[in-house]
């Protein structure tokens, strides 16, 4: 290898490593691919709660259904990642409705859609109770 080739590689290595270290120290997911490796870095207190979100909808026929996230072209964690936006502006749920209609063109129309949290409460590390809470809701306007 030429001296120049070695220098370029050494400089690139140093830049990537420094950026990675800075990303781990101060960055967030937004700084991908240099953000912190925070897979499963969240924790739950032994006496606390575990939350999993779910999408519930009501069809024009009046049936309440649970929509699997994959039927919206999304993953559950993606819907959960956008919950702060949905809380701030529940009208954004119309995008989930649009996604449902695009991925299920033959399915009955939706008149309501809501993101709900299934909450499992823990006591000393064991699940002791369950409850459900609505975090954001959307309803079709007009007749």
């Amino acid at each position, binding site marked *: *290898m030429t001296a120049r*080739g*070695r220098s370029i*590689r*050494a400089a690139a*290595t140093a830049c*990537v*490593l420094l950026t*990675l*270290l800075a990303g*781990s120290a101060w960055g967030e*997911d*937004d*700084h*991908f*691919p240099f*953000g*912190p*490796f*925070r*897979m*499963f*870095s*969240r*924790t*739950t*207190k*032994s006496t*606390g709660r*575990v939350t*999993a979100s779910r999408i519930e909808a009501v069809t024009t026929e009046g049936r309440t259904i649970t929509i699997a996230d*994959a039927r*919206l*072209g*999304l*993953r559950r*964690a*993606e*819907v*959960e*990642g*956008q919950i702060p*936006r949905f809380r701030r502006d529940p009208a*954004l749920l*119309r*995008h*989930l409705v*649009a*996604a449902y209609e*695009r*991925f299920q063109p033959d399915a009955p129309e939706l008149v309501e859609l809501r993101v709900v949290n299934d909450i*499992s409460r*823990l006591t*000393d*590390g*064991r*699940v002791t109770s369950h409850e459900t809470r609505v975090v954001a809701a959307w309803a079709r306007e007009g007749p």
Partner: protein
Amino acid sequence: MTAFWFPAWPRSRVAILRTALYLFVVVDVLWATGFVAPHGDVPGGLYQPLFIGRVLPLPTPTPLLVAGIQVVLVVAALVAAAGRLPRVAGWLVFALYLEWMVIAFSYGKVDHDRFGFLVALAVLPTVGLARWGDDERDERAGWALRAIQVAVVATYFLAAWAKLRYGGLEWVNGSTLTRAIVRRGTFLSDPLLDVPVVLQATQYGIIAFELASPLLLVPGRWGRRMLALAVAFHLVTFASITIIFLPHVMCLLAFLPLEKIRAVGSGWKPPQFDRTNDQREARAASTMRRTARPKAASTAGGRPAAKSSRNDRSWST
């Protein structure tokens, strides 16, 4: 330092790794990370571009854009996997795969199993031509492999740091794994919800494993043990919560003496890294009787392994 970052390793090791990783790109794009392609049909109002997507700026995904990238990426990866146009095809794969990742992770969730794989895609084109069976030692090959290895180790090590940054000591002392199993448990892991002490001990074990990950870079026995532990860690994680960091796992191949797989040419011989051979070769080396090498290690694919040295016999030389 120079010896660490620029080891002279066989080009064939890179050639084989390249084939494996570029073929994995095809598997990943078409199947393993199957959630990306549908993003083209998700309304643009749900697209929340990452920093890199805002800076460049990359377009909001549409069905046409996503399908186009998918096709070109698969074709480029197949060309690169065949060892053709290693630089042009390689850089194209890197650029398009990075964009594929931006499309993947700009909808509210970023995965953290890609760093090593992206580093691999970035460094593999720099090696240039490298063919299976080309045992010429080359510092360019060594640097590329070392960069992938360090990226893998950094992923584990900095993951421990992130757990402390976000979870604090509660990560090891709290109900971290209980949460994971409540959300994504399997029939194998669900029963563990009744024995929280086992889950908490596992939390300590995970942090210990991640902090010990630099051992992967140690040549010889400790490196091999750590590699086996890493593979076991990923298998148990998959059995417990159905998550496997496949792109990252693929990068573990960079720790293996892949050149020992000689499928090219006449006949296939199994890789020679069983314990018996290691021990026999260590004895042979210690007595400096090079002619006493076991026959299986001295021939490969019907040709004498003239360029082999003692280093070849380590999994992470």
